[in-house]
């Protein structure tokens, strides 16, 4: 396995453009409370192996899209460096132009050229090849994406799912070393998302492409990625496989990011994943209502379809426990129950 991408200690800040009144406050009245810069990415390092699919996940403003734009060369870093196939492409002093990087990018709004047909859109990036090669490659891509029948239509004449496939095909046409996908599913209907995830994973795997996906939806990350990188306010929180980040979160933020978690003080009887701060995280579905274990009073029961959420208050001064259970078996609000950890 060779390393396709390597990022070292990358940082990016933006200087805010201040409106008149705030400019006066900042620079004439020297009001320090007016911020000048916003930190988007802070000291981020990771690497991506050939053929791997990596997901960058975080809330909005966590810097995930900025990292993608830095890799593509659309932004310049303030610190750190980016290497693609051992060649340094971005440092604060020098950035190679995006058009020379051989990176494919799928944009959130697809960014299809509205005045070109589907076929012309896909051909756009192949201008260095001759006509024959272009023809062959476009036909190949159209076959792969099952878009043959739409080749001569305009982007606005086809559906959202098809537009997304065109965007993917356009990015893949020139066989990029690295494929970047920026929130690829956020513009799709909920019903379309699941099949599109499957399809895109299939296409990426078939073409043996190395890919980085930016998303805020943990389902996208779990379904597609080999590794997940969780970001918060520009800083990496954890890097690991989907199972690792879900079952062995390193801190409370990561634990809560992927759904409700019981964070318990460290005692011997509490099992579960140990966090950096010493607490332990236990997923609600790993707890069951049982005869033995921690005793408490049921405070609230909510039905969510696949499961019931039961909130149990053990004793005064202790944290509430949340338990997911497929059936209640007679448990109701006010009843005394025991909670235990599944093995």
């Amino acid at each position, binding site marked *: 396995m060779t390393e396709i991408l390597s990022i070292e200690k990358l940082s990016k800040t933006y200087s805010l453009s201040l409106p008149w009144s705030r400019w006066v406050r900042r620079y004439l009245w020297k009001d320090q409370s007016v911020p000048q810069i916003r930190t988007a990415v802070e000291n981020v390092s990771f690497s991506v192996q050939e053929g791997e699919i990596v997901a960058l996940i975080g809330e909005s403003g966590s810097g995930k899209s900025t990292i993608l734009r830095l890799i593509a060369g659309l932004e310049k870093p303030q610190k750190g460096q980016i290497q693609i196939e051992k060649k340094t492409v971005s440092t604060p002093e020098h950035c190679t132009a995006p*058009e020379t990087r051989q990176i494919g990018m799928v944009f959130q709004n697809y960014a299809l050229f509205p005045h070109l047909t589907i076929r012309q859109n896909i051909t756009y990036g192949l201008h260095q090849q001759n006509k024959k090669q272009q023809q062959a490659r476009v036909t190949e891509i159209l076959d792969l994406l099952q878009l043959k029948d739409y080749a001569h239509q305009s982007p606005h004449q086809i559906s959202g799912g098809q537009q997304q496939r065109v965007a993917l095909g356009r990015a893949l046409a020139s066989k990029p070393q690295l494929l970047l996908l920026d929130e690829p599913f956020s513009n799709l209907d909920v019903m379309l998302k699941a099949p599109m995830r499957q399809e895109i994973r299939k296409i990426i795997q078939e073409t043996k492409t190395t890919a980085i996906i930016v998303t805020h939806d943990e389902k996208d990350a779990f379904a597609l990625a080999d590794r997940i990188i969780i970001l918060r306010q520009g800083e990496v929180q954890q890097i690991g496989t989907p199972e690792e980040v879900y079952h062995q979160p390193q801190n409370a933020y990561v634990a809560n990011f992927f759904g409700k978690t019981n964070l318990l003080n460290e005692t011997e009887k509490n099992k579960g994943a140990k966090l950096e701060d010493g607490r332990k995280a236990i997923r609600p579905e790993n707890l069951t209502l049982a005869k033995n274990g921690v005793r408490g009073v049921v405070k609230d029961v909510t039905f969510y379809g696949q499961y019931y959420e039961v909130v149990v208050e053990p004793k005064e001064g202790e944290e509430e426990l949340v338990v997911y259970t497929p059936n209640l078996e007679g448990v109701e609000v006010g009843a005394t129950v025991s909670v235990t950890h599944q093995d």
Partner: protein
Amino acid sequence: MSKFLCLRFRQLLRAYCNPWVLSCLLITVTVALPIFVIFSHLSWDGSGGKESLSELGIQEWEFEDALDNTGILMLGTGLITLILGSSTAWLVTFYRFPGSKLFSWGLVLPLAIPPYIASDTYWNIFDYTGYIPYTLAKQGINPLYFIENFAHDMEGAIFIFSFVLYPYVYLLARASFLQQSGSLLESSRLLGRGSWGTFFRLGFPLARPAIIGGVALVLMEVLNDYGAVERYGIKTLTTMIFKVWTEYESYSGALHLAAILLLLVFFILALESIQRWGINYTVLTQGKQGEKPQLKKGKAFAAFCCCAIPFGFGFLIPTGQLLYWASQTFSQVWDRDLAWSIINSLSLAFVASTLTMILALVMLYSLRLHKTTLLSFATKVATLGYATPGAVVAAVVILSLTWLDQTLLYSLFFLPLILGYVIRFLRLSFYSIESSGFDQISPSLDEASKSLGATPGRTLLRIHLPLLRPALIIAFIFVFVEVLKELTLTMILAPPSSDFFTLSTITFRLAVTDGVPYRAATPSLIIILAGIIPVFILNYLLYRDSKND
């Protein structure tokens, strides 16, 4: 430290040493820098300039008179256009009454009539042989008092300016009213404010930035005008620049006056931007207005009159009079001069608008590629010319060309004129291409093109140019028509041969210098007809988003 400086220098060099940035800066320097050079001719202690004026035999009181007249003209026109523009826009946008649909676009039409053409027409309507004085005389009233004190005086000039320039206020006010959420106004009505209260407490304050912006445009047109005030014999700063320049042939005197005029313009621009300070709310655009209330009987009649008066005086009467004159004289006016003036006008307009379009495109694209503070400042400076009165632009062109070479001005023939048009109308082209072109193209298209290996040049050619085509056409038409209408600049910078005419200068010569307004009707109508095209485009662009119309 020196290493750091060296590094920083290389970074700067890399950032600014590329063809796009350099050409953008070059355009700014050639187009805008002369405007600032003119200030060096303003003597701050008041001695130098005035000395040269008094040496020319111009008394101090003459200068003060010109300043006073300019001020009164601006004040009167500003107030009347404010009232006419905002009230008609309010009525047409929020009520239905007989003719409201027709007025909604008809009220813009006076914009097609340059003030100097309207003033010629009204001068002759109100002249001794005109209809109103004739009727007055028939009633046994001496019309002389009316003619000399109202129709052919300051009042007459303010009347002309107000009724042909109010559409600037109307257009911007209406665009702003249309953006105001219908539900906002409906809630005001439900909270018990009547329609007057709603206008003064809600509609007007929300649209105020736009309305004042419109008034500022009107004032700049007033400062720009030469033809109308000359016709009415009112001494303003602009006519004074002319006089000093053509009669006394004094560079420095004209430049001194031009600098004062420019200061006045900057003062208006400053006031206009100050009134926008502190406005950080965005007007809701959601919630379209429901059914417009239908006005009945007396109210409907009042609303109709309110719109019919500006439309009538601003467009119908002058156009009707011109049509009548033209039909009477059409067969006699076709001569070599008129034919040549049309050819001259069209070719000048074609060259100027093509050049302006290309320059604006280059600047906008450089700005899109390198959105640095320096470049956005440069483009702002380069487009200042639109606020600069024609007489000042002319002075600037003369100044810069004579600075290069004393004989250059007369040997270049068309070039000074083209340069003047470019300086003055670059903003128009720039703004059209920006707002209906580049702003509509998502930046992710540029990025997609880049990531697919396209250089900036290829992206411009393959992506932007095809998408920009409508905006480029609009920019071309706007500048084309403005060049046809432009009088002040053309008169000063036209090649100094006695038989060189454009449509606007031949109109002015026939109507004012030769005193045969009937013969000027045909070229006037050609200019007006050409002027109607961009009015319709403007109307379409401003209101295409509002479906309730």
